[in-house]
């Protein structure tokens, strides 16, 4: 599912790019469908990554899950529950740090380029926050779908794709 989602994301992006050069101008309907498909694939991919990260976090010895069969130390049930919640929250933190670094790096890269056209507005390159918001909104929806955990790469590429999809629609 993860691999499939990534493949569909890449496919959607290349199609969105090729739409720009098509005769007759950008087709709004087509680009909307492409970006929706890309987002659906991206969201599945993100959710799979989150679940995967959650599982990896739970393996860390200092935060034993209440459901594991390994003998606990002197932790009380209350502490265990709190710890589990911390574990659940944790996947966001490393991701945020990574994203901030990505954001800063992207910005510094951009400053070194020549003057850009007006169509490439700066807010479009802050998609990472928007992507997270989307993820938060739709995560609950997605979690109800069938998900399969899988090993995957970093989701940086996926989130950059969102910026492009949004820009494709706005450019119309």
């Amino acid at each position: 599912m993860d691999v499939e989602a990534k493949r569909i994301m890449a496919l959607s992006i290349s199609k969105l790019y090729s739409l720009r050069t098509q005769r007759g101008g950008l087709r709004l309907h087509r680009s909307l469908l492409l970006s929706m498909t890309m987002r659906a694939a991206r969201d599945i991919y993100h959710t799979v990554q989150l679940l995967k990260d959650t599982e990896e976090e739970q393996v860390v010895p200092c935060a034993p899950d209440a459901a594991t069969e390994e003998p606990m130390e002197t932790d009380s049930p209350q502490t265990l529950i709190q710890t589990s919640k911390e574990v659940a929250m944790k996947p966001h933190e490393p991701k945020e740090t990574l994203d901030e670094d990505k954001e800063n790096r992207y910005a510094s890269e951009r400053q070194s380029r020549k003057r850009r056209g007006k169509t490439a507005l700066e807010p479009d390159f802050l998609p990472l926050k928007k992507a997270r918001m989307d993820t938060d909104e739709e995560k609950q929806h997605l979690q109800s779908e069938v998900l399969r955990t899988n090993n995957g790469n970093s989701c940086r590429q996926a989130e950059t794709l969102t910026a492009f999809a949004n820009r494709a629609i706005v450019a119309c």
Partner: protein
Amino acid sequence: MMAGVGGGNDFQWCFSQVKGAIDEDVAEADIISTVEFNYSGELLATGDKGGRVVIFQREQESKNRPPSRGEYNVYSTFQSHEPEFDYLKSLEIEEKINKIRWLPQQNAAHFLLSTNDKTIKLWKISERDKRAEGYNLKDEDGRLRDPFRITSLRVPVLMPMDLMVEASPRRIFANAHTYHINSISVNSDYETYLSADDLRINLWHLEITDRSFNIVDIKPANMEELTEVITAAECHPHQCNVFVYSSSKGTIRLCDMRAAALCDRHSKFFEEPEDPSSRSFFSEIISSISDVKFSHSGRYMMTRDYLSVKVWDLNMENRPVETYQVHEYLRSKLCSLYENDCIFDKFECCWNGSDSAIMTGSYNNFFRMFDRNTRRDITLEASRENSKPRAMLKPRKVCTGGKRKKDEISVDSLDFNKKILHTAWHPKENVIAVAATNNLYIFQDKIN
């Protein structure tokens, strides 16, 4: 007249004619992009990607043996739209004819509306079989006569000439659509018509070209919030205040122009709940409606999405009354169809004259017909191999799994480059026109 689809004792579909080049190498400009019979069925118009309109006229019924219905022959050909360039947006505007709609005939001339992505034109097609001769101020070859040489006056006389069919643009309705026009529909008042693009629908008067009323606008304030577009629109066949428009989300809205000047709020909302078990990455795309058509009676409407055709009763909004699977075997191939862009193909659909049958296209030059009364369906093929005059069409079958029978074709063998997107059914008789890339096939029922 019932459309027998099962090949029983009722009747058989037979090949009648095929128009277009046989050449394997198809020029893109020759690809047919719309097909439409006029109200009487006497005329059949096609538009192509090159912006050309070709009109065929049916000749009188032959009294020869064997008797045959009149054939369609070329009546008029003209260049409707040319490629244009929008300098402000640096965009090329394609000349492809998206839709043709005939006006009801009110005098000797015929009128039709043709549209590309941005401009709608009203064309007058008229016959000229007389020519005035005996002018005073010019010779027969058109050269001006020296006025001092004219010693007497004469009245020009109309003399017969070879029939000439002229097409002239009478109205040009331009600059009203920011997005790409997907539909035009003539209203039953015969005075107005609507045009729809991705986000807006405009109402025009046929006599007035410099303004139109915007009656639907679904453009969000922030384009990043866009979730759906308009995919098709049509006026009700009898109620001139009612129209419908379909969306990329698989919904249809019926609007009443008496309710408000701006019909953003619908009167009826048609949507079938999605089956959660069939959800996939491509659910959004395949639920997008590519065509909507009212029945002739005005009681029903039909919608086409990627895999099915649905008939809706206008009195019931929560689900269609009939659903017909066109090519369900493609559901497991959606990923491949997404890769090769076929999943974005916009198939049209049409009713027969009595609303008892419906027709739509598929791949491999197959087209499907569904009889609403008997619930039988048939798959036929538009192919040069079956193009002997009055040859009966053999039903085709796609093998969906297991052992392939003798005359069946497997899903993997289907040619996805041969797609039938545009079909039309004669308003009164069992004659159908099927556009297969650059060829137009005409089929009719067998006459005993």
